[in-house]
């Protein structure tokens, strides 16, 4: 088989994961609604906390309050997007173990790159659609001021930050491969830690120094800084470069490293019989 034909075959195979995940989303639609309600309520709660700064003796009003609402909206939406991308990719193995299909999928003649690319493409498309829906619902409750937004810059940063979260997701997906139950628990811990240190709902400057140091390796930190700069201040990608290049570096390091670690972990699982357990 020529390299061209083999590549085409792999591209077609990657669609298998997109279609399968789409079908699963369709079949678990009730759960999708439940998770959507949860995400919307969580985001609205945060925005109402922000809105409460407009009442009381030390109240802030007008444009200042609008900026607080916008700051929090960006945090809620970007975190919703990035954490969903991370979750879908990091649960690649957990989901298969739960369904009992892990051996079947890993036995199929597709490369792990194809497997993870398919999962990542679905993750990005699904998370983007979900985030747009949440934005639409939030707009019904709050005036989200996008009049200063540089939408092109925002889009570029969303794409770049997706790469870094895909890389992190692939690395986290290794854990359930190595540790049948604890691995899934560990991915939640990683996700929670990222939420805490990345300045999702507050500037990282309010964190203790040691947390700020940890925050420097979180791609969400740079993604949020950049997107806030683009949406709140209309900055271009060039202006945002100090926060954009770390995203590029994290993506360039974590994706190949994640793949290499995943392949090695798969070999370890095959050597020790870890693939068998499906519960």
């Amino acid at each position, binding site marked *: 088989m020529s390299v061209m034909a083999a590549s085409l075959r792999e591209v077609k*195979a990657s669609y*298998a994961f997109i279609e399968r995940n789409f079908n699963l989303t369709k*079949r678990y639609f009730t759960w999708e609604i439940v998770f959507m309600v949860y995400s919307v309520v969580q985001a609205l709660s945060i925005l109402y906390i922000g809105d409460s700064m407009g009442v009381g003796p030390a109240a802030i009003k007008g444009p200042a309050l609008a900026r607080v609402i916008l700051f929090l909206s960006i945090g809620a939406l970007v975190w919703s997007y990035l954490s969903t991308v991370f979750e879908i990719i990091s649960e690649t193995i957990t989901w298969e173990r739960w369904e*009992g299909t892990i051996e079947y999928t890993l036995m199929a*003649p597709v490369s792990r790159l194809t497997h993870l690319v398919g999962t990542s493409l679905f993750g990005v498309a699904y998370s983007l659609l979900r985030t747009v829906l949440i934005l639409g619902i939030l707009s019904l409750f709050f005036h989200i001021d996008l009049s200063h937004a540089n939408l092109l810059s925002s889009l570029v940063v969303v794409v770049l930050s997706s790469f870094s979260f895909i890389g992190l997701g692939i690395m986290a997906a290794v854990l359930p491969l*190595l540790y049948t139950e604890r691995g899934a628990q560990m991915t939640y811990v990683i996700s929670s830690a990222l939420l805490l240190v990345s300045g999702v709902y507050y500037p990282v400057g309010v964190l203790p120094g040691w947390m700020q140091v940890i925050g420097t390796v979180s791609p969400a930190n740079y993604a949020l800084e950049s997107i806030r700069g683009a949406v709140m201040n209309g900055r271009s990608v060039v202006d945002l470069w100090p926060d954009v290049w770390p995203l590029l570096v994290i993506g360039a390091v974590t994706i190949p490293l994640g793949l290499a670690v995943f392949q090695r972990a798969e070999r370890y699982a095959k050597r020790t019989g870890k693939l068998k357990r499906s519960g």
Partner: protein
Amino acid sequence: MATEYALVIDGARKVFRSGKRSGRWWSVLPGQAPRTQKEVRAINDISLRIRKGEIYGLLGANGSGKSTLIRLVSTLLLPDAGSVTIFGRDVVKQEDEVKRMINRVSVDAAFFKKLSPMENLLYAARLYGVDPAHARREVVRILNIMGIKTDRIYQPLEKMSRGMQQKVAIARALLTSPILLLLDEPTTGLDPRSKKDVQEFILRVREQHDATIVLTSHDMDEADRLCDRIAFIDRGCLVREDTPLGLKRDYARRHGMGEALPSLEDVFLEVVGHSLDEDWADEEDDDDQTEMEGAP
């Protein structure tokens, strides 16, 4: 590479080591030795050769090593020693080529249960590079032959009986046209009718698809009926291998039975020393508290 053998296993060994962890958080890291260790020799120096077109039976009690052997052939486990080749391709060194030649049906029909048979089988077809339009037609054709009505093909698998799910699992394997089909207890737990349907389908697959089939089973009558040759596996070792008739004649000759033939179960009991119903230690102890030794 032309070869008369579909599958050659040469001196294969597989040992699982497991043990309780110390409870310290770092004990979960790969490479940290467990506090107590248990060693299970799941496959102990097994060698066998299966000719192209054969139906080859592996008979043994639970924990005897049958499923581990199937997993070694399926590329789901790496042998500690020895080699496994499929039509001349090594399962470790030429894993990708091997994966295209095989498919496996396990005792538990491994599916996305919320998805329909059509959705599950289309997923498999895409993974194996089968044209989706062709696959859609084949799914309906194969499942209809197996007695599954067309309207059931589009409903979630979780609404189907285990027998029907197992038929879908066999259909999935056939859809990818494997030249070596690994059937790991495909009829265990099925009702008599489903069992008979699946057995007849296995014979039809061999005739129509020119496939070589490795079948593990608990059912002596099934093995006797379907298999060209049978191997008895006990505690990770291959203890006897012959045609069903050869095994029975040998027993009859040694016991002076004349023209009468014993049942395959009698032969198994004599050779192995215990019945198929006796279980041995789990081949792959995978309690979550026990982590296998070794680093990736």
